[in-house]
């Protein structure tokens, strides 16, 4: 097996598994940049996966192939609304963000399974007929060598995810809104003095994190799992948070980290086909992202620092 053959197995698989992680990690970046801890993205992802699968199942009979794309849009809106529960608690009611994040994750799994049982009378949904398929990119997949590696057998969502990382980078670092977002996350009192509405900015950030995590969840359900159960997401959200930290709270960094984690995850599956990886037990490849995150935080892979006001509710007039 030549090196190029190996690449044409690994890279499409990595791009395929990384897409949901990239979207969700970008959502977490929005939230954390504004000073709100993004632990709830796991739950938001669950809600997105649920809404995405449900919409697809309801509409695919009439609308056919376009349904999963519409479902992703609806999942984005649904998760954006669901994230308001988190927003109200941690912004207006000054609840502990970590604890509320845990509660949101439990609530999302409980509520969606409750609804699944109510609607389908069983613990999981049916499989959707129309998925987001792996496709060969028109024209580009015909390029020799590169076409096989980067443009064959990959769903469009992976390219959209990578493009979104640059869009989010532009929003956060090049627009007035992004500047406000970052200032609220670093020093809310100073931002307030300059006339920035701290709580409103944080609400927008939390809703954006809901929208992105919802897309991430829906993409996972509609391109990878194909149905929804209580175990569909199982930790993808936390992995996205790990990617965000590994990427040092930077959208493009988070995207690169998510690609790497997707690569590590897919190696657990594709590793058996690749000569020098066959000998490494797959459990080490599966654990790699988590170990690397700890190392990144410890400073062995370059120190990662969170926004300063992360996790602190803003109460006017306090010092």
């Amino acid at each position, binding site marked *: 097996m030549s090196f190029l053959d190996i690449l044409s197995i690994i890279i499409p698989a990595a791009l395929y598994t990384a897409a949901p992680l990239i979207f969700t990690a970008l959502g977490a970046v929005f939230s954390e940049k504004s000073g709100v801890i993004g632990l709830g993205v796991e739950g938001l992802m669950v809600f997105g996966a649920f809404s995405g699968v449900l919409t697809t199942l309801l509409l695919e009979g009439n609308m056919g192939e376009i349904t999963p794309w519409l479902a992703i849009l609806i999942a984005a809106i649904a998760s954006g609304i669901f994230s308001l529960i988190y927003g109200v608690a941690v912004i207006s009611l*000054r609840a502990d963000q970590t*604890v509320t994040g845990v509660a949101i994750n439990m609530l999302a799994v409980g509520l969606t399974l409750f609804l699944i049982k109510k609607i389908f009378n069983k613990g999981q949904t049916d499989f959707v007929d129309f998925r987001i398929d792996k496709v060969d990119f028109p024209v580009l997949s015909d390029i020799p060598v590169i076409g096989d590696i980067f443009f064959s057998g990959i769903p469009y969502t992976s390219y959209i995810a990578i493009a979104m990382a640059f869009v989010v980078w532009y929003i956060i670092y090049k627009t007035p809104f992004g500047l406000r977002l970052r200032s609220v996350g670093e020093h809310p009192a100073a931002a307030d003095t300059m006339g920035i509405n701290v709580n409103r900015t944080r609400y927008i950030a939390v809703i954006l994190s809901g929208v992105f995590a919802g897309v991430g969840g829906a993409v996972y359900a509609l391109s990878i799992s194909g149905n929804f159960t209580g175990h569909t997401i199982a930790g993808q959200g936390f992995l996205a948070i790990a990617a965000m930290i590994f990427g040092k709270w930077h959208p493009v960094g988070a995207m690169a980290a998510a690609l790497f984690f997707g690569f590590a995850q897919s190696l657990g599956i594709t590793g058996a086909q690749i000569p020098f990886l066959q000998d490494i037990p797959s*459990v080490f490849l599966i654990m790699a992202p988590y170990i690397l995150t700890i190392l990144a935080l410890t400073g062995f892979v370059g120190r990662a620092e969170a926004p300063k006001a992360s996790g602190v509710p803003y109460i006017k007039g306090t010092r």
Partner: protein
Amino acid sequence: MQKLLKNQRLFNIVVPLFSILLGILVGAIIMLISGYDPVSGYEALFNGMFGSPKSIGEMIRAASPLILAGLAVGFAFKTGLFNIGVEGQLLVGWLAAVYVGYTLDLPAIIHVPVSILAAAIAGGIWGMIPGFLKARFKVHEVIVTIMLNYIALYSTADIIKRYLYAGNEKSFPIKESASLASTFLADMTEGSRLHWGIVVAILVAIIMWFILEKTTTGYELKAVGYNQHASMYAGMNVQKNIVLSMTISGAFAGIAGSMDALGTFQNMTVMSAFTGTGFDGIAVALLGSNNPFGIILAALLFGGLTTAAPQMNFNANVPQELVDVIIALIIFFVAASYLIRYILTRFSKEGK
């Protein structure tokens, strides 16, 4: 009412009670909206908790690991640390207890404590890692413990498959001499799986109370939790206390794992997902205001709700996941206690 709000100790009781009430209320609304009868739903749930000696036995059985998980979270909270890694510490403790319970040949009087100790040590080491990283490198313990949860999940599953595999996704069972199971307790509760673990859990609760309230170490741990800088200025070793707190917390979580290993299951399954006990432990600790006695009560409530859920499904046809929703809502309301404080002050103002 105004006086009541100023009294922090009373407030610590009012908030959990109010949160339970709100959780049940919102649960009822959800049942109503989705077309179930809340009265028969809650009736079935209540009967599932207290309806028979067996259900009470099951409630106490389910509460034992929850108490320990709650104590683990609560102990770390007292030092200002958030141990979200109870789940992982519980898994390594579970594996350690099964390993010692399966490989060693000892009389029961020694085998049981040794197995529990092994679980405590394994959990303690797993908890010490984030404690050390926090103390030495100032890495936030929440992220490290979440990552360690996954490492524990995948590595314990792999170790069972490699070294302890008895087939059918299960490890070898522990020896009779390491078992906490008791025919006496099972007969008394008419066939529940109740085991001696509850005694261990209550003992650990007393130990936690003793450490925190009666020893210098406990005083230091709490002082570090209140104000690190003041403690450092007073000559306390803040870093040592952080590591110690996480280690003890992890040890408690490890013992929670031994409840499942030596009591309920007598072996360990190759896990593909978390048990959920660790996350429920956060709920238990919050609801119990991090107080050992409160944690026991909260664990009994959540243990009862969890074991009664299938019965609610069976008798009133309400999906059992409603219980998870109610538990999540209760944590949510405890966390947002500002809301409850606000409502209470509003009511008391109008009352005047």
